[in-house]
């Protein structure tokens, strides 16, 4: 197997995630796109860990998974609060801090 196969798949997933973050208006869908981005990062970490025959890639991927879980928890709590206050999770309407 080639190293680049994994890295290119990671790049494609990352760009799909970036598109999702930019094009979506629903708060939950934006969080899902962020999960895609974090998984692309994990694929790269694991690929390089296997390439160098080193478990460090796995350990960093585990840290990323942990931080992603914390991020989803906080993110969904914020979306829930947004919905409770405004009856909508359309991110275009959240412009309170717009100058």
């Amino acid at each position, binding site marked *: 197997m*080639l190293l680049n196969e994994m890295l290119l798949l990671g790049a494609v997933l990352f*760009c*799909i995630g970036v598109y999702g973050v930019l094009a979506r208006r629903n708060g939950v*869908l934006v969080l899902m796109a962020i*999960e895609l981005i974090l998984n692309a990062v994990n694929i790269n970490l*694991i690929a390089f860990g296997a390439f160098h025959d080193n478990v460090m890639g796995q350990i960093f991927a585990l840290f990323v*998974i942990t931080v992603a879980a914390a991020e989803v*928890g906080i993110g969904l709590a914020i979306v829930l609060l947004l919905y409770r206050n405004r009856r909508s999770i359309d991110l275009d309407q959240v412009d309170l801090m717009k100058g």
Partner: protein
Amino acid sequence: MIAEHVAFGIIAAVMVASALRVVTTRDIVHAALYLVIVLAGVAALFLLVGAEFTGITQVLIYIGAVIVLFLFGIMLTRSDFDQDEETDHKRKFPAILTALLLLAVMIGALVDRFDDLKLDANPQTTAQVSDELFSQYIVPFEAVSVLLLAALIGAIVIARREEGG
């Protein structure tokens, strides 16, 4: 060797197709279910290159916990299940352009630098991971556990319904 390539090709094709559906489908629940396919594909890739512990953690944490959290989030924030809410921006062109430019730059850099490097997947056992994690990386490990606790308490405080008065 051939079997590895074929397995990778099938997993990668399914993952990319599902990931595209995650960011394009208009049904939020379908997006969450397509995300399950992508996450399962990532776990399969981890197992394919011999990262067994991370692969199983991926299934447990992402498919087991994060997706359930997402489904709860969808359930709690949808006022009307039949209502066809707007999920995307009207003008998608800037987002498509940004993603494609980013992809072109990344593919160029990767092909330029990492072309023709072989990836020999030796299994990395759970024992190796735990030895490294609990010796050299014990401080980050403890820090990340405190972070998780803080995030848990923070999520409860943010999402808690305010008592009247």
